């Protein structure tokens, strides 16, 4: 019980301390978007022949004729009440558009993170168990190469190999084949929704569609995760308690996994936070390559149409997710290492 309340207090404190940063993020996004080139009022007037009056009217409607500080105050109030404005291209409230598209992005990012962790932690451990061996060198080489290939290039090459050459992967556009039926909208995560309705052929279709974009994202972040696992495993394996565990004759599995890995995971958790930020950025590229209907491609389309409400909302959303993930990591930290929560 005291552990739980300790965690709750920890979450609360971390959330509180992230408020100034979030506020800064809102202000920075606002300022950035207000100096965008091109007058959206002109863009969305009926046409190039639109009269001055019409443009003025749209400017007034959008609140663009007010002084910047007043626009900012209004914007802050809107954000606080969850009103992020209307997208001028889709005509829908941005919050609604985002809500519909966010699960697609999150499903992609989390799948990629899981793949990256499932690959990199064993690789890092294997490398650390035999430093200087061929395994170690192979892992190092894989990491060095992985971080050098831009996500958009590896994504396209994966498409070439697995869709064009081998024919294993489905058409690399969207979350499902256009002729396939979408699952009932329960969580918005296709994998979860298909599993909940027991539609396993649908689940498989969604999974294969998800695999290539997730892998191309995972490859890019493999390196920091595997390197950190290796380094911290090496440090832990050299410590006294491991020597003790070995000398009292505990099984190798127990020594490596229960004792060493649990202690070595802390720095890996820390770097996972940084990696997550990279992945949110890489999301933009991957969604474009795979025509993934997520928030990033939505924001990108809006950006190129100088429609700034969605872009503002997107940047804000990404920063918020990043902050929340960091809070989550902090909590996991406390669970992985109970010493951290005692202050």
């Amino acid at each position: 019980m005291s552990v739980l309340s300790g965690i709750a207090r920890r979450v609360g404190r971390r959330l509180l301390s992230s408020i100034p940063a979030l506020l800064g993020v809102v202000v920075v996004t606002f300022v950035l978007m207000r100096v965008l080139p091109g007058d959206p009022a002109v863009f969305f007037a009926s046409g190039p022949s639109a009269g001055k009056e019409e443009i003025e009217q749209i400017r007034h409607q959008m609140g663009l004729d007010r002084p910047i500080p007043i626009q900012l105050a209004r914007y802050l109030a809107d954000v606080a009440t969850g009103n992020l404005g209307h997208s001028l291209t889709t005509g829908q409230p941005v919050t609604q558009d985002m809500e519909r598209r966010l699960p697609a992005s999150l499903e992609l990012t989390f799948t990629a993170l899981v793949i990256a962790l499932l690959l990199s932690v064993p690789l890092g451990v294997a490398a650390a168990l035999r430093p200087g061996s061929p395994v170690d060198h192979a892992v190092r080489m894989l990491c060095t190469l992985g971080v050098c290939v831009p996500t958009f290039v590896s994504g396209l090459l994966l498409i070439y190999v697995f869709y064009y050459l081998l024919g294993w992967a489905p058409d690399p556009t969207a979350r499902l084949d256009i002729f396939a039926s979408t699952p009932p909208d329960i969580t918005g995560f296709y994998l979860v929704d298909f599993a909940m309705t027991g539609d396993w052929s649908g689940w498989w279709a969604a999974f294969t569609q998800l695999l290539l974009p997730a892998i191309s994202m995972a490859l890019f972040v493999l390196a920091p995760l595997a390197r950190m696992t290796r380094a911290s495993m090496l440090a832990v394996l050299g410590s006294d308690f491991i020597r003790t565990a070995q000398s009292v004759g505990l099984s190798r599995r127990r020594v490596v996994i229960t004792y060493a890995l649990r202690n070595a995971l802390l720095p890996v958790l820390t770097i996972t936070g940084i990696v997550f930020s990279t992945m949110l950025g890489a999301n933009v590229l991957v969604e474009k390559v795979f025509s993934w209907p997520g928030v990033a491609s939505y924001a990108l389309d809006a950006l190129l149409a100088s429609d700034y409400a969605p872009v503002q909302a997107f940047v804000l959303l990404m920063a918020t997710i990043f902050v929340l993930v960091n809070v989550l990591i902090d909590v996991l930290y406390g669970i992985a290492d109970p010493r951290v929560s005692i202050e």
Partner: protein
Amino acid sequence: MSAAAIQRTSTARHVLFILRGNPVTAIASLGTALLVLIAIFAPFLTPYDPIASDVAHALAPPDAAHWAGTDQLGRDIFSRIVAAARLDLFIAVTAVGLSFVVGAVVGGFCGYRGGRLDRWVGRFVDVLMAFPLFVLAMALVAALGNRMENIIIATAVINLPFYIRFARAEVNVRRNAGWVEAARACGDSHLSVVLRFLLPNVLPAMAVQISLNLGWAILNAAGLSFIGLGVQAPTPEWGIMVAEGARFITTGKWWLVAFPGLALMLTVLFFNLLGDGLRDILDPRMRT
């Protein structure tokens, strides 16, 4: 031989000695040097005009005449890759240079003076770091205008936090060192202490950061132009070339994507290996 000449040969010999022990670093240095040469002499190395289209030979796979094939307008991909090296390196070097100079000076003063300036800059850096950095770069380019110089500025800004923090921390631990006090006692102003004594002292450690950041900066700039920001077609640039080739990948035209992708990869690889090598030489404890 004069004293300076002896000094020079011994430095050269030392560098050679180090490179012999680190073949990977040696290869990376050679590769980087080669890249710089290609970038400088690009106009003399391109067998074809990088922006001249030749529709009769569009989408031709690699052969003896066109080493890397041609794109959808019949432009020679090899020539375009070579021509793009100059632009891509220029963007990365300028951006990293800019953020290095600004970051070192700002971070240096923050670490030296502390106080209110330090707190505000710290807060600003925190806000920057709260953004996923590529997303921030996107927003910056969109806000400042879709032009090449703004890609440089955006890339510089997202690199800035690292340099500010680094310079701040390094200067902070040295601010009370004896030689700083000595410089003050000799009548050096605060400005001169920071610029002439403290910053040169942290420079070697920052050099490693520069090399690692160059690769990252190239990836960022290429990513931005891939999504349609910054450099505009028909200018040859690796990110744009990949973006243009993306449309043809599902029909098996791999060379449009693979060769510019390879150029990007090799460039980033050389910079990263060089950075790793420099770090190993300067600080063997950091090795992972």
